[in-house]
């Protein structure tokens, strides 16, 4: 009996806070009663989707980034480095992948972090575990995934993301690929002593950090989100389902590699890809294909490859890109086959 109540409360919280059912109803009501759009028209569907999704994503994202940043503000890359310096072997890869999901840093810092970790003696494979998981999985995106799809899919996404990071990093260690890192990365710092003292943050500073993160991230991703929601809205309202399923549906066995191929060169935050993913799923595209697309967009991009090529040699870069592409395709097929378990 008591269990029943808990489930009900949880479902209500999920629907109203995470999925924001109230917002969807409000937008639909405004569209049909105030603006006077025909409820079944394509314009109604597109516009309602656009307004509801944009508002929802911005509210959720700001709240989540604030909470996540506050909680993780003490975890600087320096501290992460200190933690990673203490473990060896597979546990190091696992901890590296986990820390990657919670250490807040801007993607443009990934190369300085790579250099810093390597100089500090952390194995290249462990650093890669960290760098693979960090754009792929983070607190805010997991909860957004749960909001848009459901908790099973969100947790499955985290699971395979972490697995990929641990495995990729471990393979780099096993095959001793640190020899494909540019020499200067291993050199000791030569110019002036650097490390500023780490002072523990006060509560006020953590709050400031959190609100700064919200501003920084929103400033960086708002355009991606609008474009993403825009594409999603067009797909939702105007593009016929048959059209999409014939290209990306389960009848086409190449739908997964196709989604990955389209996604890899694209450069966007996971937050921009979520609305597209949602629209595709609602049009009958397999969950595996959609996850592959999202992972391809976030884990690999041209700018990040160019940056990486400055610190690692072509062989390691090729391994990195190849491994991720292959894993994402595999994940896509597996989810398409077993996706019914998650819905």
């Amino acid at each position: 009996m008591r269990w029943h109540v808990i489930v009900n409360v949880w479902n209500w919280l999920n629907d109203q806070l995470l999925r924001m059912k109230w917002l969807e109803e409000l937008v639909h009501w405004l569209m049909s009663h105030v603006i006077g759009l025909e409820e079944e028209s394509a314009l109604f569907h597109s516009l309602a989707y656009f307004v509801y999704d944009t508002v929802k994503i911005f509210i959720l994202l700001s709240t989540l980034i604030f909470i996540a940043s506050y909680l993780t503000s003490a975890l600087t890359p320096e501290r992460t480095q200190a933690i990673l310096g203490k473990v060896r072997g597979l546990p190091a890869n696992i901890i590296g992948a986990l820390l990657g999901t919670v250490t807040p840093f801007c993607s443009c810092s990934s190369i300085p972090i790579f250099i810093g970790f390597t100089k500090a003696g952390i194995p290249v494979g462990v650093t890669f575990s960290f760098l693979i998981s960090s754009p792929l999985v983070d607190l805010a995106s997991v909860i957004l995934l749960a909001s848009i799809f459901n908790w099973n899919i969100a947790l499955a996404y985290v699971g395979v993301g972490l697995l990929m990071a641990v495995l990729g990093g471990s393979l780099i260690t096993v095959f001793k690929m640190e020899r494909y890192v540019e020499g200067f990365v291993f050199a000791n710092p030569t110019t002036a002593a650097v490390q500023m003292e780490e002072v523990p943050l006060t509560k006020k500073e953590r709050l400031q950090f959190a609100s700064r993160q919200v501003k920084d991230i929103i400033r960086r991703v708002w355009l991606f989100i609008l474009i993403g929601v825009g594409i999603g809205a067009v797909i939702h309202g105007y593009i016929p389902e048959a059209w999409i399923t014939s290209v990306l549906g389960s009848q086409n066995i190449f739908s997964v590699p196709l989604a990955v191929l389209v996604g890899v060169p694209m450069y966007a935050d996971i937050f921009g890809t979520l609305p597209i993913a949602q629209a595709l799923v609602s049009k009958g595209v397999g969950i595996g294909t959609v996850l592959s697309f999202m992972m391809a967009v976030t884990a690999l991009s041209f700018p990040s490859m160019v940056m990486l090529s400055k610190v690692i040699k072509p062989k390691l870069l090729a391994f990195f890109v190849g491994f991720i592409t292959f894993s994402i395709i595999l994940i896509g097929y597996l989810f398409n086959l077993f996706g019914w378990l998650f819905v």
Partner: protein
Amino acid sequence: MNIKVLGVGCANCKRLHQMVLHVLKQEGMIATVDYITDLVKISEYGLMKTPGLVINNQVVLSGRVPTMDEVKVLIQNHFER
């Protein structure tokens, strides 16, 4: 006085560079300002978060864009010495 802004060319780094130039001009202070995007040089400072601000070869800030007032205080502190 020598000021270096370390960054890999992201928007935040450019913003910090502009802020430094603005503060110097406003306060009428003279300093050489280098905008460093070379990874090898940046890595020599052991910096893990960009942008970084280096005054007279000492890292004074990293990983965030400070406020205009913070930049002013940081520069003034080093200017007097």
